[in-house]
């Protein structure tokens, strides 16, 4: 397992996946507080030029956090699906999966090493993003609840892990990278829609995004979305491992 973990980590670094993810997260971590701070000024200067009067309230740290949560949960999730859609199916297509599984390696470990390293990569990227966003929010807006924002980020991380585990699952069962991406996007959209339904919606992992925002601002937490996310996480990891165990190279 250790050998596979090291190999996966090196692969993330050398194929550029890690750096792309880091760059995207860093970009939005800096952009979000900047946008929150200067967007009202930009809008008001444009409106003055157009001789339109728009009343924009003074931005606060909550705008910065809201902007950050929105960017990470939308654009960064999109990038994550693109980065991880080929994580298994590409190895199946190119033959490197056969290269590994014909050796004394557990197929479970083959998948689990990918899951763990993908989680670590997203953890690293989100941690850096969180620290940068916090620093810029502090710089632009002064004091804000750093620890609550940290826990809010933990909820976002859990959401990203659910997205990664679904993408890995589709990458395990799909025949091509494009198919894996399409199914992952569809499930992502479906989760977003299901989260709007009364009753079951509170258990859908997509609720973690609004929960992250709510917790960062007011410290309120609902355990349903958390338990739902853990269930989906475990389910998709299990399904990935199970389907890869059954895989026979054509």
């Amino acid at each position: 397992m250790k050998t596979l973990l090291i190999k996966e980590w090196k692969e993330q670094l050398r194929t550029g996946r890690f750096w792309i993810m880091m760059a995207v997260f860093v970009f939005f971590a800096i952009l979000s507080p900047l946008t929150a701070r200067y967007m009202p000024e930009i809008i008001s200067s444009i409106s003055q030029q157009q001789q339109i009067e728009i009343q924009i309230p003074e931005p606060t740290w909550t705008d910065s956090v809201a902007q950050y949560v929105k960017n990470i949960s939308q654009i960064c999730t999109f990038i994550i699906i693109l980065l991880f859609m080929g994580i298994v199916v590409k190895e199946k297509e190119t033959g490197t999966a056969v290269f590994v599984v014909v050796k004394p390696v557990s197929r479970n470990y083959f998948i689990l090493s990918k899951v763990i390293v993908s989680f670590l990569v997203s953890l690293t990227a989100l941690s850096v993003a969180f620290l940068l966003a916090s620093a810029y929010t502090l710089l632009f807006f002064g004091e804000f609840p750093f620890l609550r924002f940290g826990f809010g980020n933990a909820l976002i991380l859990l959401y990203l892990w659910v997205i990664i585990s679904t993408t890995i699952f589709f990458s395990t069962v799909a025949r091509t990278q494009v198919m894996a991406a399409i199914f992952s996007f569809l499930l992502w959209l479906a989760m977003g829609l299901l989260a709007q339904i009364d009753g079951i919606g509170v258990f859908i992992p997509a609720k973690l995004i609004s929960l992250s925002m709510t917790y960062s601002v007011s410290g309120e937490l609902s355990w349903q979305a958390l338990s739902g996310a853990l269930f989906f996480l475990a389910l998709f990891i299990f399904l990935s491992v199970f389907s890869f165990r059954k895989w026979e190279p054509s």
Partner: protein
Amino acid sequence: MTAIKTEQLTKRYRGESQPALNGLCLEVPENSIFGFLGPNGAGKTTTIKILTALMSANSGYAEVAGIPVISGSPDLRKNIGYLSQEPRMYSWMKARELLCFVGDIFGFSPEERNRRADFLLELSGLQHAANKRISAFSGGMIQRLGIAQALMGKPKVLFLDEPTSSLDPIGRKEVLDFIASLSNECTVFMSTHILSDVERVATDVAIISHGSLIVQDKTENLLRKYASGKLEIDFTTADETERFIREFNQSRLNGKIESEMLSITLTPPGTAFDRHEILQFAAEKKFEITRFEWVNATLEDVFIQLVSKKE
């Protein structure tokens, strides 16, 4: 001792009317270089995938290195090496790094892993490229690295699926020399449809067609049993060629003649052939001959004879 044994191995793919393997029975002697021959679609790759536990058979029994082949068996996978038809390795790795990765998978200590990686880089002639990225390797180098990685775990049986099919003549020679040097290392099970390759390196041969075994024997026995040589004679003029054919047909000698403008190929009716009689006949009739050569039978002759008979 037997390195590989299969009994009535059968595999039928979903949606296919014909089975890919149809009761295949094989016995591969230990430390042999075993050529596994068959036309395209005969079931060679399917056999290798079953024997390496990458695929399961519908019925039958198989064992490799004395271990029953069961899908997912780690015991089996510790004792085999495998190189697929189009070897794909992690192109972002360097050659030595890849061998060390494989060594780690097999649980070698760092010292043993490094020693074995260096040994195999030398054996495969890749010492100079040890720290080069695999993405920059030529086809021949990838194939040799592929065999080296398959040997990394000190396998008892090495499976090579069409190891030379995608290579140019130089790459093929490099790889065949490498395979020939492995006879003391392990049993090599090599599938191919390039008959000259097998003839060059294999000590034992099996020919399959439509998923079942046609024949299996030592290479030299096959050549002796199933094919005779040919006599090739070149003449100075086309008239001389025609005169030879005419006179030969009128003589008491037997044989099948195929002719071109200035040459003929004489195939004996059975496996025995008295070339001295022909030589004497040619001398007596004073044919103007520029070349008189006995050409030994090749595996290609055996293959064509046996496979076409089966079909």
